[in-house]
């Protein structure tokens, strides 16, 4: 892994300051993490239920965005930026993938933990992103929780710290957002 945290942080900061090429420069780093994770799936036995702090995914997030050099004051903003950037890259990635491969992302991704629960033909990352945009209009804070958790990979405690709300509120927001977004994506399906 060549992505030095310092570089990622610098890129994030420069994006924050208006450098438009930051996402493009960050993309390879994110892709490398993705590739590595995908490799893990291919090679290793995977336990579905592990403590979240030790998952390769969490480690990948940490490698990309954890930065001790950011001051506490900037942290919330920093994580927010990181999550937004990851969201943009992942959605973009999904779109490219979908265009490149017949029946790629849109058909395959069920955003469930399982492959096969309702929604197998339903939500794609892009469609989900679209739903989240609608949600954002009505529930700005709740959508931030979703962004930090789903795209940013933060856990409940971290989100509570970043948004300066209680952990209970994070959980309530999350549970509500799930219902709302699920309904949005699955429409009137019974």
């Amino acid at each position, binding site marked *: 892994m060549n992505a030095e945290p310092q570089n990622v942080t610098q890129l994030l900061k420069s994006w924050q300051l208006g450098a438009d090429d930051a996402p493009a420069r960050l993309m390879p780093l994110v892709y490398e993490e993705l590739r590595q994770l*995908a490799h893990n*799936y291919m090679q290793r036995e995977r336990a*579905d239920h592990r403590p979240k702090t030790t998952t390769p995914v969490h480690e990948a997030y940490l490698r990309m965005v954890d930065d001790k050099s950011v001051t506490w004051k900037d942290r919330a903003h920093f994580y927010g930026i990181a999550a937004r950037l990851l969201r943009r890259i992942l959605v973009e990635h999904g779109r490219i993938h979908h265009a490149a491969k017949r029946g790629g992302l849109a058909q395959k991704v069920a955003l*469930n933990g399982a492959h096969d629960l309702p929604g197998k033909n339903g939500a794609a990352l892009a469609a989900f992103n679209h739903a989240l945009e609608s949600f954002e209009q*009505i*529930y700005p804070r709740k959508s931030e929780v979703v962004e930090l958790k789903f*795209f940013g990979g933060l856990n409940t405690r971290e989100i509570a710290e970043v948004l300066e709300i209680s952990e209970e509120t994070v959980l309530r927001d999350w549970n509500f957002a799930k219902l709302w977004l699920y309904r949005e994506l699955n429409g009137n399906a019974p």
Partner: protein
Amino acid sequence: MHPERAERVAEIVERALEWEADERRRLIVKLCGGDADLRTEVDSLLRFEEKARVFIEMPALEVAAKIIADENGKLNPGERLGNYKIVSLLGEGGMGEVYLAEDTTLSRRVAIRLLKPGRGAANIIRRFRQKEQMLAGLTHLNIAWLYGAAITPTGIPYLVVEYVEGPRLDHYCRDQALSIQERLALFRKVCAAVAYGHQHLILHRNIKPANIRIGADGEPKLLDFGIARPLDTATSTIAEQTLAARTISEYVGPEQVRGEKMTTASDVYSLGVVLYELLTQQCPYDTTSRYPGDVARAIIGQEPMRPSSAVAKPAAEKVHSVNGSTFEIRNPKPLCGDLDHIILKALHKQPARRYASVAEFSEDIHRHLVGLPVIARSDTLGYRSGKFVKRHPVAVMAAAFLVLSLIGGIIATARQAHRADQHRELAEQRFNDLRQLADSLMVEIRDSLKNLPSQQRDLATAHETTGDTQGNVSSTNLGNKEGAAASDQKAMGIREQLKDDQATTETQMQIGRGYRAVGDLLAQKGDINGTIDKYRSSLSIFEKLSAAHPGDQSVQDELARAYEILGDSLEGAQRSEERLKVYLSALSIRQSLLTQQPDDAKLRRSIGLNFLKVGGASDAKTPEAVENVRRGIVILETLSAQDPNNDSAYREVGYGYARLGQMLFGGGDVAGSLESRRKAFEVRQRLAARDPKSAQIQFDLAVAHGDLSEALTATGESSPALDHAQQALSILLQLSAADPTNVLYRRNIGLCYEKFGDACTLFASNKKQSRARRVKAWVKARSSYKQGLDVFAALRDQSKLMPADSGFADQFAAKVAECDNRLKGSKR
């Protein structure tokens, strides 16, 4: 929506989520007041609570990574995988995609089934290797053939199976508007296939209409035998839910839903559901939901509707009509009675109360078809088996004891096989299957004996034995051979009391096959005397059966097989006279069977191989022996020519020539031997080109190289002889490196060292060569003999030497000494 109203919705939903059912309803009513729209909005969100449970719980990064992993594991049309060219995606199964592919060397179409890694990938690959051999042994008209298995360059294991182009069983019945009788006849063929698998101690685990295809010849073919992964029970709640979501179909039995051990009764259950749907076009359970949790609940808790009532229901009420079929059996009458009982018996919630075997299930349908009273008709406790026990008390008891004694034997062998892991696994697997069989048998006997006080004492004894065996399972003393032998004796004692007509044919057949299975197991671990013993027991059962039922073809078939395998096992014990005798017995049975079934290719194949064995067991110098082998080859060549795409038929031709070459060589006809060995070599080279990864074919090829080398040495051609011996060694050493415990490989390595040494000796003895080169050849010969000696000495030290091979060590030592002599001489 107004922001304040949106906040209100969120607040109510969030609070409601903290409560269950009634409390929640009251809270919502209270909080919404009279606002119907608000209430609708709140309810429309809350109804997704269950379904959204795992939604987006997996981080986006992980989702994206999984997609990439999935894509990487995908195959695209045109892509090549060994000899196979991907044509198209056929579908996505529970374990991975299934592709249509073309075998480019054999120009036939095959299905390639990927087994995606994931949970327990390492385990799967290991089990898959082991299963490959078991599954490849399933050759049945109604089972899709498993051609082979391998691993893709990206590390995904896959199976290559026969591609069956044809409709699903249920669609076929519907589209052809088959009558109930026709459906039942078709279904019984499926049962025969499943029963065949069970005889080989393999469960199907995933029987459903989509896995049963009707070929162009109208024969049903069962797909995916034994491939389904058993449920992994050691999982957390969430994982369990997702897993359950993936695996629970309406065809699995309650024990499988609960993640308990599956048995042959589980396949009986699945077959029951298939039959239910074939006859009623409906799912047995009255559930509108297709959501896995609901299906699981229905399977565990709901009694299935009577098929006749299900059919009688007006169409509008049919909640879940299978495949929206248009053709329907509407008349409940034909289903009333027998068929209702038969199907419901197969669907019993308790595995032990279902049919004891698929064969019995099928037999009962047959009884119904021909108008005999069916077994299931009186499912009241004890009626059926009670009646059976009344008629054959000793037989039932003996069957139970025999199964238990077989288990004892298997435990013993499993313990002894601890050096070879794969054998132990196989043994344990078989042990578990047999124990299940014993358990269900015991339950049946107990139930049926409840009303028969006079037999309580026998029952007690039976239980004692069960207890003994099961107690032994957990104790360290498990493999106690004496214990196993004692229980064996006891069981045999009871069996001795039997008159032949007291046990049913089927029970005895099972016992005969049981002995054979144990014999196979012992053969794998190299216990020759044990193998012979078990095969003899198997033979004597089939001999008695044959005497009682001389006209029964399946008995005759089993009898011939029993003779044949006994002959095979005698080879290692050097009892050639008896070997010839039993091979001749097998041959004569088969020849008389052939007069009744002259077009049976399988039988002709057996006869072809039988001729080879008869020839092989006779004195090699007699012309009759050679003649018999030639007759065998002619039969096998004809069969292979009729079915040119069949690799195994072709392989047998190679085997025939190899055998002939061996005999001619033994009889001194070196030129003739060379000729047939060249033919054998050609066959194997061609096969190896078609399937370069098959260890079996590589092994055959190595043997052919070695045989050629031997014949070439004998005809004085040292350099091609050296070349072939070298190639044989290089293949064998590779094979052995991959499978170091394989005794057969090691033995042949030893033999090939000798052949290489012989070729060197030939070269060294050629006076035309320079002195230096000859000395060098002697050195090479010596080192080769020494290596062969080491191989056999090691085998001897590990007690893995076949008695027939016991002379090799001395023979090699003498050759080493001879080389030393020559070298000493040359120094002078």
